[in-house]
């Protein structure tokens, strides 16, 4: 087992453990913290393949912005009984995970190596310019819709 495989295996195990922490913890604040840890470990798996651009995106946008806002909201609305795990659903989840893992183990045998990342990142704005403009437009429209919705509600 080479170093990259070892790193992504360890990061993957800890990411799954912190995701289980999200499921099992009772308080939303700790669930948000576990979620941020999971996202950081996912960024670590990207870093193992030297995809630094996505590492920065995940760390800044997901952990820095989305994660921190979630933690702030969870700290604001802080009350304890916020989960009710339905045990009936655990069995099908385990079955689905076993089947997918078996299939991945048998068929996903290729080695991974991210290549031409610099060229790809430079080509992205020119090739997907229309997509990016549409995305910015959608975000602005959603912000305006959110403001309109929030103003309509009576206090």
């Amino acid at each position: 087992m080479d170093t990259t495989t070892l790193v992504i295996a360890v990061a993957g195990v800890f990411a799954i453990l912190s995701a289980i922490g999200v499921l099992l913890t009772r308080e939303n604040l700790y669930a948000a913290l576990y979620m941020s840890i999971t996202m950081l470990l996912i960024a670590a798996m990207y870093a193992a393949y030297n995809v630094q651009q996505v590492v920065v995106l995940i760390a800044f946008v997901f952990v820095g912005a989305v994660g921190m806002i979630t933690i702030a909201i969870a700290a604001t609305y802080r009350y304890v009984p916020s989960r009710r795990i339905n045990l009936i659903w655990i069995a099908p989840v385990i079955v689905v995970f076993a089947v997918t893992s078996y299939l991945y183990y048998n068929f996903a045998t290729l080695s991974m190596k991210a290549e031409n990342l610099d060229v790809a990142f430079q080509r992205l704005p020119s090739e997907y310019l229309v997509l990016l403009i549409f995305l910015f437009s959608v975000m602005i429209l959603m912000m305006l819709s959110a403001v309109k919705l929030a103003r309509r509600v009576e206090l």
Partner: protein
Amino acid sequence: MISQLFIVLATSSAILLIAYLTAISARDLIRLLISLELMFGAVFLAILPLFSIAATTAFAIAILTIFTSSSELLVFITAIVLLDRRKKGIDLEKVAVGGETL
């Protein structure tokens, strides 16, 4: 011999299934928001193998995922504020069927 592709995809599916369980067991909007962000994390991991095939496309999908996640956060914060104003709480049990009264 365990391949790297297997580790990445199995971790992605495990996180996705745990996020589904969290969404099912959520009793308020914040836990639901956290479970959705976990699902986006699983999607991010599922994109990783694409970087070894078509890196530019993978970057585009990653940016699309980030925009979608940010929009989801925006909608959820609005939903939390609206639910708190109308129902004086963020319990999912306070919402009527479909949330049509909002």
